[in-house]
């Protein structure tokens, strides 16, 4: 099974909800509608022809003021999947507006998504619906804002926090 077959399989299952598909840098990539994301991740994992049983990475990109992307949704959440039985990789993206930045959680499918989603929440402020424990992962609780957002002031200082209790 090659990259074209993977994308065709996604298209025949989800049809117009696959907004874009291609193989940039030789890796099959599909942009999905947010409504089908949870279902699509589940399909990629359990479908015997796809068999993407491993979540390699889950991250996000802030496209604020990105040339050519000024009008579109601000964020993109990116899933990197790997199929152990077929030795194939797949990149799934879902676009998210700044207002109501919520994505269904992948934690029920892959436990590793727990911490990856906490990191995305911490750094970008994108919420994951159905996440068991959505707290900051890297920054401390008193931290205000989400530092990897492009509009976070690069030299902003936050007050030092003292020792707890």
């Amino acid at each position, binding site marked *: 099974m090659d990259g074209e077959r993977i994308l065709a399989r996604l298209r025949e299952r989800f049809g117009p909800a696959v907004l874009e598909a291609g193989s940039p840098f030789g890796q099959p990539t599909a942009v999905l509608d947010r409504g089908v994301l949870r279902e699509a991740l589940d399909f990629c994992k359990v479908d015997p022809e796809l068999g993407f049983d491993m979540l390699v990475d889950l991250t996000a990109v802030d496209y604020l003021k990105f040339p050519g992307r000024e009008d579109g949704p601000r964020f993109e959440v990116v899933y990197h999947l790997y199929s152990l039985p077929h030795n194939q990789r797949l990149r799934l993206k879902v676009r998210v507006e700044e207002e109501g930045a919520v994505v269904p959680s992948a934690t029920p499918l892959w436990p590793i998504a727990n911490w990856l989603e906490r990191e995305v929440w911490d750094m970008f402020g994108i919420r994951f619906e159905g996440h068991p424990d959505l707290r900051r992962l890297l*920054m401390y609780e008193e*931290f205000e804002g989400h*530092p990897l957002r492009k509009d*976070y002031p690069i030299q*902003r200082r*936050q007050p*030092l*926090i003292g*020792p707890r209790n």
Partner: protein
Amino acid sequence: MGVGDFFTTKLDQAIGWARKYSIFQYPFVTACCGMEYMATACSHYDIDRFGAGLARFSPRQADVLFVVGTISHKMAPVLKRVYDQMCEPKWVVAFGVCTCTGGFYDNYATVMGIDTIIPVDVYIPGCPPRPESVLDGLMKLQDRIAAGAQRY
């Protein structure tokens, strides 16, 4: 000037001399500077020549806090607590530019110099500092200890 005053001064000097050759350090190692610290502590550069060979991994048994590596805002309360747990007299060495000033980090996560949190006696610059610089810093610290410089 009585006899007692004269004797006390000499006692201070004796204590300072003894203290400067029995530095029990607490290595607070958080980043890459730690490799250079280990190189200094090992036999080639041999930090034991200065009486600083025994690292104590409990702050309650240590005299000198070696802060080795970048301190993030999340780590800052831990560093403060470790400093507070050390018994007096105590000294602090900032090891490497990250602990001195924040170094090349100028972002949301890094503390801009540990002297914003705890008092520092000796700054050792370098990214990372060469073992020679570390030994120089250690000798400067010994001078301070012998002179009786303390913060209470």
